[in-house]
């Protein structure tokens, strides 16, 4: 039997706190939470019998008696990360959200609110996309979400700068879990960039299990960047679910750099004709990090198109997992879907599992996918070295180029250049470290 410590502890937390949880007074939230808790009690954390969880055992999480993070004081975490691109910055804490915005306030048509205080506004949206049925952490998040943010773009609004959401979980002395919930509504014809940034601190294990629901209305263009830079004591299991209406565009980036065990699900349903999406991601792991991505693109309407690029870099004894599911439903004709996933394995102990997964039930489609697992190109390395570049530097240079393909279209310049620098350093350190050993 796999341990159920975390599950028991979290169910206990739900039972003892259900009356105090946000929305307890409004019937529909209470009911939503109750059903979710039942579901969680029934299924627990997903196990390796579930196809999409096969390569990512959650036992390290199961063994820890996580309790929901205490309501902390409503102050910004001391090490709030650098603002991306003069962004409207919002920190999500256990006792609400803290806005860090220019004096003249938010522009017309942009709403940023604490989710737990805006539950009335998200009735009919909350829980609509992120169902508790599929195995994962949605059930436990729905039962216990204690913090979060609602971001709404009114129809036809174009944001002048990105929204930078900082999720920070801290635990000292005992293991803490945070269940942030995010609802993003990009109104018809609106345009904007939202960065969700996950960080953790403290001397004890943390678990972040966030769920983000994104509604992209007709003709809206939304960029969603998910940056996960939690500490090596952190576990991270998150999910992003989007639904796109006709002629909308969603571009998503998921950058998984931190935490010891991280799993992110990115799912979008192309529910209106002419909708398009692009999903991109990087997972860069070293030491014993385990980084898993599951993506699902559901072509539910005709004339929809998708593009996907995921890149993995695995060093030391790290393990990377990528499972990319593309579904073309019956009747969804005129579909274009293009998926690429590439990984480089840098050391003998590292491991990568890649699984493109295409399920096609319509005929007027053009779906391609390519997957490679390999190492750095010896000819390119030699070429660089013949120009006087050291081996370590040559490797770092090539890896930076490898990652750049995903980073290059990131919509925020400052974030892009910061990540680019960071990748180079990360890679440089990793390579240098191994060369010495």
């Amino acid at each position, binding site marked *: 039997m796999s341990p159920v410590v975390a599950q028991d502890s979290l169910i206990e937390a739900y039972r003892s706190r259900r009356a105090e949880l946000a929305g307890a007074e409004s019937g529909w939230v209470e009911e939503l939470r109750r059903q979710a808790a039942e579901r969680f009690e029934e299924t627990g954390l997903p196990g390796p019998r579930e196809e999409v969880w096969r390569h990512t055992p959650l036992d390290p999480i199961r063994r820890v008696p996580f309790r929901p993070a205490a309501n902390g004081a409503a102050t910004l975490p001391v090490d709030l990360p650098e603002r991306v691109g003069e962004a409207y910055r919002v920190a999500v804490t256990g006792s609400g959200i803290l806005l860090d915005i220019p004096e003249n306030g938010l522009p017309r048509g942009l709403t940023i609110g604490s989710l737990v205080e805006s539950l009335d506004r998200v009735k009919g949206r909350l829980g609509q996309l992120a169902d508790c049925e599929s195995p994962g952490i949605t059930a436990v998040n729905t039962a216990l979400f204690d913090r979060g943010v609602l971001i709404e773009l009114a129809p036809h609004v174009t944001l002048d700068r990105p929204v930078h959401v900082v999720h920070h979980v801290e635990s000292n002395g005992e293991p803490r879990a945070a269940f942030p919930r995010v609802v993003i509504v990009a109104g018809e014809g609106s345009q904007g960039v939202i960065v969700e940034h996950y960080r953790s601190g403290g001397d004890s294990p943390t678990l972040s299990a966030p769920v983000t629901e994104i509604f992209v209305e007709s003709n809206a263009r939304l960029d969603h960047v998910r940056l996960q830079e939690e500490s090596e004591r952190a576990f991270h299991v998150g999910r992003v679910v989007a639904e796109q209406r006709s002629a909308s565009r969603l571009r998503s980036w998921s950058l998984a750099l931190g935490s010891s065990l991280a799993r992110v699900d990115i799912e979008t349903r192309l529910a209106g004709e002419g909708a398009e999406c692009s999903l991109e991601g990087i997972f860069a792991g070293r030491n014993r990090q385990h980084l898993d991505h599951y993506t699902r693109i559901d072509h539910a309407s005709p004339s929809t198109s998708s593009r996907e690029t995921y890149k993995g870099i695995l060093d030391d004894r790290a393990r990377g997992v990528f499972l990319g599911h593309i579904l073309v439903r*019956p009747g969804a004709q005129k579909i274009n879907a293009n998926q690429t996933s590439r990984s480089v*394995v840098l050391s003998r*102990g590292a491991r990568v*599992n*890649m699984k493109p997964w*295409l399920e096609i039930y319509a005929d007027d489609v053009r*779906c391609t996918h390519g997957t490679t*697992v390999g190492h750095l190109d010896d000819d390119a390395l030699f070429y660089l070295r013949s120009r006087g570049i050291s081996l370590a530097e040559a490797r770092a240079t090539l890896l930076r180029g490898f990652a750049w393909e995903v980073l290059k279209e990131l919509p925020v310049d400052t974030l892009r250049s910061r990540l680019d620098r960071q990748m180079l350093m990360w890679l440089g350190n990793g390579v240098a470290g191994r060369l010495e050993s």
Partner: protein
Amino acid sequence: MSDSSHDIESLANREYKWGFVTDIEQDTIPPGLNEDVIRHISAKKGEPSWMLEWRLKAYRRWLEMTEPHWPHVHYDPIDYQSIVYYAAPKKQDGPASLDEVDPELLRTFEKLGIPLAEQKQLTGVAVDAVFDSVSVATTFKEKLGELGIIFCSMSEALRDHSELVKKYIGSVVPYSDNFFATLNSAVFTDGSFVYVPKGVRCPMELSTYFRINAQKTGQFERTLIVADEGSHVSYLEGCTAPMRDENQLHAAVVELVALENAEIKYSTVQNWYPGDKDGRGGIFNFVTKRGRCAGRRSKISWTQVETGSAITWKYPSVLLQGDDSIGEFYSVAVTNNRQQADTGTKMIHIGKNTRSTIVSKGISAGRGQNTYRGLVEVHPRATDARNYTQCDSLLIGDRCGAHTFPYIDARNSEAVVEHEACTSKIGEDQLFYCQQRGISAEDAVSMIVNGFCKQVFRELPMEFAVEAQKLLGVTLEGSVG
């Protein structure tokens, strides 16, 4: 929808022309499975006692197993107690010569294009003909014997070459491998055995032709091919069955062992009865095929053309143990009407510098569902392993499905694994281009489909490539008009 794609939709169905029944007196046992049935089968075949023990071990294991349901196929539950596990044409002993073979059987195989009679034998191909549960004739046996090549039915091998069989049977697919392989281990009735001695290059194609005839029988054959050091053999199998309304189970096991520098090429043209266009009847083709490149620089190559069966579920695989060994898998799988196929391969790279190539072409028409499922696994020791996979799907009509589930599990920093795949329909522009040159829509589709499969067909021995192209045409008839 334009006219041409409408054309593609509405091609009339040609009859399955191998669907006749041979009227012959059969020696069968009542349906059902228990230890006595297994003892009975073993006794009928006069097997050594170790074989019976092995069968019983498998049976006991099988009782503890549950039928797997992970493939992308759907079917009603199989009642294992309603299957006849042994059916054979009535005769005294194994035929000493062809003269002793029932002429009705010879006619049956002749009708199938597999003449067994001495004067009509296919040149360059030695045939082992299996009818229901037993092998009825093996041609060119003596000629092969001169080179030390053993090519005979499994029953014969168990009598005459017991030690060889004992050494290798279950060494690639253990009796406990999976539900259907374990069932096969308990009840297998016949199959072919091939042993090619050191340094011998088999001068002709070896071939087994499987025919299910009797009603309600399951076919459980077991084939074992051992290529000793530096030897070379090319083996073909073909199969057909009568048209019947009920589903029949075919759960075979094929094991290949290639020792150092040896090469085995295994080709299949699978044409079991696919059921009618509404999905009634047809063979459940649940087969375990695996090869072991045991020695250095050995090579195993699987080529399959899967056009028949109601459900095909098989993954001919290669364990690349020997350093520098090579595994190949070339596959064409066609599903039309209500056919379902879940097929692919596993390439397990264990040795250094091992190479594998996978080329899979799936064609779905009608309401057919076609799934490619593959695994490329690179073990930590498999330095410089290389895999290249290409799996393409062609869709004909808007009610079929094409699915691709390739897994890659890489644990070596010096390995390179590449996978490419493309799913699309026959281009309307391609079709129109052919028609503009005077070629009918139907011929154009068959031409385009054959072109799509060419990479695989060219791996087949000549006569089989022609046969495969024809089969493809027949299978797809009904999807274009």
